[in-house]
């Protein structure tokens, strides 16, 4: 297939369609509105349903209902809207339903701003909702990767019956790059015998539920979830390493920030500093093994985020004290520049590195 030039937000929509998703429930919010707007045009053309919900709370509960019937369904929002969805997300995770939730992050807290940010990392990876659950969190860094991860996301969601979050920022959502959607797929190969579509002759009714009033039963349910999470952790981590083989300073960053970090590393290499970039693609499960592999020759790790420091905790947890971990962040919609990251790399290289 040939490439087309599209905005990241629209690519999320088209990639979902290419993955067999025909249902979208959402509520407008900057900077992701191109996505619902795109789908409000496209879905009716192909017999799908675009529905603007009365709120993010309603939207996530519509997704819950739709997912319960076994179809591929997606919703999308940005930071404040995602906060409103936390109860619903916890229900979806607790009831083990597959779906994709997109968060195109903006500056916070509160109303904040509408410029790019990565300050919802904790919320995405640690369960902003109540209870012990995890979302599979995918962080694309290019428009092409958006297309790939949306497809992969639906498959992961259905394989594990777990909600998947696509986590990006406004810059990624509004950026245009060429994209190749590859072949169309659907979720038909996954077991949907659990879906609530009417009994239709089935003997036992299907029930989608997360209530277990007896603690013994709820504990069994929680343990089953735990088993699933452990399996995902062991099987589904993804990461990219850029020039890390001999790197003394490894920059850990995800999404757009990781691409800027690559430019910074290019600058560093030009000055003879052995630097590299570690880019987790799955934020949960965090690619712990991959990070450790990417830092075998490292003297220090610099975590760069558009936040006050969130992923840096996963970097520290993964390294468990093995290497010094420092942090550089910009916030509020400000984007770290390659030069500023380069300066940090230089500083760390002088502090921890060998001779140039």
């Amino acid at each position, binding site marked *: 297939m040939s490439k087309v030039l599209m905005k990241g937000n629209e690519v999320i929509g088209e990639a979902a369609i290419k993955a067999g998703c025909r249902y979208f429930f959402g509520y407008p919010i900057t900077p992701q509105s191109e996505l619902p707007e795109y789908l409000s045009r496209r879905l009716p053309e192909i017999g799908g349903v675009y529905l603007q919900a009365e709120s993010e709370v*309603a939207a996530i*509960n*519509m997704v*819950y209902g739709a997912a319960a019937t076994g179809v591929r369904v997606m919703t999308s929002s940005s930071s404040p809207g995602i906060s409103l969805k936390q109860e619903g997300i916890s229900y979806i995770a607790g009831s083990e339903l597959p779906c994709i939730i997109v968060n195109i992050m903006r500056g916070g807290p509160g109303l904040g701003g509408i410029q790019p940010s990565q300050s919802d990392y904790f919320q995405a990876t640690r369960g902003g909702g109540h209870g012990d659950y995890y979302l599979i969190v995918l962080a694309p860094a290019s428009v092409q990767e958006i297309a790939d991860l949306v497809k992969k996301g639906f498959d992961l969601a259905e394989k594990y019956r777990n909600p998947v979050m696509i986590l990006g920022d406004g810059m990624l959502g509004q950026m245009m790059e060429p994209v190749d959607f590859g072949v169309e797929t659907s979720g038909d190969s996954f077991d949907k015998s659990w879906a609530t579509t*009417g009994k239709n002759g089935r003997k036992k*009714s299907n029930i*989608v539920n997360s209530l277990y009033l007896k603690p013994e039963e709820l504990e069994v349910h929680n343990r089953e979830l735990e088993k699933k999470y452990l399996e995902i952790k062991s099987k589904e981590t993804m990461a990219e390493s850029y020039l890390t083989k001999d790197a003394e300073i490894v920059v850990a960053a995800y999404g757009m920030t990781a691409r800027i970090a690559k430019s910074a590393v290019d600058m560093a290499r030009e000055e003879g500093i052995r630097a590299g970039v570690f880019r987790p693609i799955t934020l949960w499960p965090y690619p712990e093994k991959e990070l450790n592999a990417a830092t075998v020759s490292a003297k220090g790790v610099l975590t760069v985020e558009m936040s006050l420091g969130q992923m840096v905790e996963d970097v520290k947890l993964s390294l468990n004290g093995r290497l010094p971990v420092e942090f550089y962040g910009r916030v509020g919609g400000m984007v770290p520049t390659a030069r500023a990251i380069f300066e940090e790399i230089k500083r760390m290289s002088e502090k921890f590195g060998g001779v140039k």
Partner: protein
Amino acid sequence: MAVVFDRPKSLTDAKFHYCPGCHHGIIHRLVAEVLDELGLQDRTVGIAPVGCAVFAYDYFDVDCIEAAHGRAPAVATGVKRTRPDTIVFSYQGDGDLASIGMAEIVHAAARSENITVIFVNNAIYGMTGGQMAPTTLIGQKTTTSPLGRKSELTGYPIKVCELLATLPGATYLARTSVHDPKNVRQTKEAIKKAFQLQVEGKGFSLVEVLSACPTNWHMKPVQALDFIKNDMMNYFPLGQFKSPEEAK
């Protein structure tokens, strides 16, 4: 001898967990009878609420989804929009529907979602131990209005049928009661009409059933019937507030 009255097919064998004299049981039975009579059991998806009827999925022998508190209409929307051939009903209490779920019910009606809502109005939060609901009558004592509900502090009970009747999307709205056999029969008719309209694709239908919560009203079940008849029906008149003939 022919059986003229027995457990409907659309109910499971599970024993209800409801308190003695609680009307949830009557209303469950009526819904199930209607599903039987219209032959809908096999294609129905029920949405259980957060409230005393939280275990509805154990009682209705149809596919069921447990909704978050107040969000049943949104969940029902998600089901109906993806599977238009299913028959979808939500079963909700007054705290669930008229308090936390107000936006969802208004918008489901405004959109004329082709679903049926069974709205059990018992003027109180049963499940959580008898707190004030938006339908609690003035003067009624609850655990959070210990001296009786006062209009100066908390305003007036919400009449859901009357409120939704302002929406062109609401196709059928009726308020009934189950405090005596005659009204039980009428309630069943209303519920049947609501489902029938959904089958015909006519849009949003809701039946509000005045219902007793003897436990939290601190009344004997029989006494609670009188409270419905004398107090509740006084503020919440029975009747049909919207019918497909006049809708839209």
